[in-house]
């Protein structure tokens, strides 16, 4: 307990916690829309596609400044997202195939570049691999402020456009019929998704970022039938995952953060799947049993009369 208090007394740790909390919140919120738009895997592709961008940015500048690496990650992340959309809209290839294609090409290229970086004589390269698995402890104050600020902006934009994103997600053709600029809104949503993935990479890592996007959302779906509530719950689940994962990783001295954030999110998902009222597995089983008993009773009565 005193360890925990001591840790929280450290200003940097507090910032890291605020950062991962806001990151979890933002990915929970955007992940809900991604899930309902059936774009879960696009987040995964974008996260993987960020790797070559990070390496290229590092190769060009030779420094590990977060903002430079993030620009690199955003560029290749966006490029991957639009390549997927382009393949789907201009060929007979289906979305899952396009995602698989783009994800592996970009990630493969990223690994090649990463190997190149690691073979470089300069000593500055260490720590770049933290980007692959996520290491929140490596975050410094200014990184976290950038991350927290970006996450806050993403959440605000999504809240402002809640109604527009809702109708676009449920019925895109109707949204177009209403006169909404659906092309622009799709583009904007994809950009928000890329942004949240990119700012999450340093804390969660390229491989696991998609899990932080989707797991809180799918867990939240068990608790409610209302979109606004689902988004709030998903945001809270994401925030809890971010905080708990960071605490565990800080306690464990050098344990990677990303995996523990994702493990926490997965635990919340399992609890939701089992115990949620109405949609949870156990609630459904109980309801089914009650119904069967009633049927049997009714049947027995009929048999007697």
């Amino acid at each position: 307990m005193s360890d925990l208090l001591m840790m929280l007394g450290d200003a940097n740790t507090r910032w890291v916690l605020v950062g991962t909390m806001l990151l979890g919140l933002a990915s929970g919120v955007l992940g809900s829309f991604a899930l309902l738009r059936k774009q879960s895997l696009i987040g995964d592709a974008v996260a993987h596609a960020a790797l070559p961008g990070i390496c290229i940015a590092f190769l060009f500048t030779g420094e590990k400044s977060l903002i430079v690496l993030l620009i690199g990650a955003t560029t290749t992340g966006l490029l991957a997202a639009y390549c997927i959309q382009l393949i789907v809209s201009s060929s007979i290839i289906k979305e899952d195939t396009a995602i698989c294609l783009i994800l592996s090409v970009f990630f493969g290229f990223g690994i090649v570049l990463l190997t190149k970086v690691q073979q470089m004589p300069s000593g500055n390269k260490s720590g770049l691999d933290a980007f692959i698995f996520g290491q929140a402890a490596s975050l410094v104050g200014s990184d976290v402020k950038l991350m927290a600020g970006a996450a806050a902006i993403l959440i605000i934009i999504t809240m402002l456009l809640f109604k527009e994103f809702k109708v676009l997600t449920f019925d895109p053709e109707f949204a177009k019929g209403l006169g909404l600029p659906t092309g622009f809104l799709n583009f904007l949503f994809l950009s928000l998704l890329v942004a949240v993935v990119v700012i999450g990479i340093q804390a969660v890592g390229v491989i696991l970022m998609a899990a932080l996007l989707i797991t809180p959302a799918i867990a939240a779906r068990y608790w409610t039938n209302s979109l606004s509530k689902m988004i709030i719950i998903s945001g809270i689940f994401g925030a809890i995952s971010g905080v708990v994962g960071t605490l565990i990783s800080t306690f464990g001295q050098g344990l990677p953060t990303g995996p523990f954030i994702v493990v926490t999110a997965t635990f919340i998902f399992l609890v939701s799947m089992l115990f949620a009222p109405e949609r949870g597995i156990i609630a459904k089983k109980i309801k089914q049993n009650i119904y069967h008993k009633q049927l049997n009773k009714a049947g027995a009565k009929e048999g007697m009369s």
Partner: protein
Amino acid sequence: MNPVDVKNLTVAYEKKAVLKDINFTVPEGQLIGIIGPNGAGKSTLIKAILGLIPKAAGDVKIYDKQYRAKDRIVGYVPQRGSVDWDFPTNALDVVLMGRYGHIGWFKRPSKKDLNIAHESLKKVGMEEYADRQISQLSGGQQQRVFLARALAQDAKVYFMDEPFVGVDAATERAIIDLLNELKSQGKTVLVVHHDLQTVKDYFDHCILLNVSIITSGPTEEVFTMENLHQTYGGKLSFLDKGQMMVEQK
């Protein structure tokens, strides 16, 4: 003024024309059936008019003005199967979406919008289901929710894509009552329709379509055996049934 005036409309997927040189106008305040076989381009026609898919050529005017969705004079009822009904929302919320064009950016629905949404649900006989999760509605009820959403748009011209498909008799009756009410308010309603048996009962005006317009005009004049033959081409067994229907009337 014609509510809908389509000139030289052509729509093509790749190089194949799905709609070829479509020309027609429709009279105001009537129920209009768009009739034709599968693959005739009926849904495509609606979508092209509404600008949901690109036109290869042609011109669409709604009340003598180039159609722009922003003008909010057109309401649209898509096919029920076009959306995922497991979406986390209730019937009232879906109907409220019909108001989104009126509400404007960033704003939330007002009390007035809520009242209109409730009123629209009432008109389709679904007011008790306002809070019902949409996945728990039957097919017919879902169709009525879609109709209520279009009503909430408060438009002058309505386009409906197969509203009668897969609904029970009660819903079919409710829909046709609603169409007649819209008509009595001077609204124009274009309906993609499949069931030849009911054409004469439901529609004042018909557009017979098979890639190009076979004919269009008042139902008594154009819904004839000869025109149906031309529209449905070689599908004879089907047409024999059609013949029976036409002769019965």
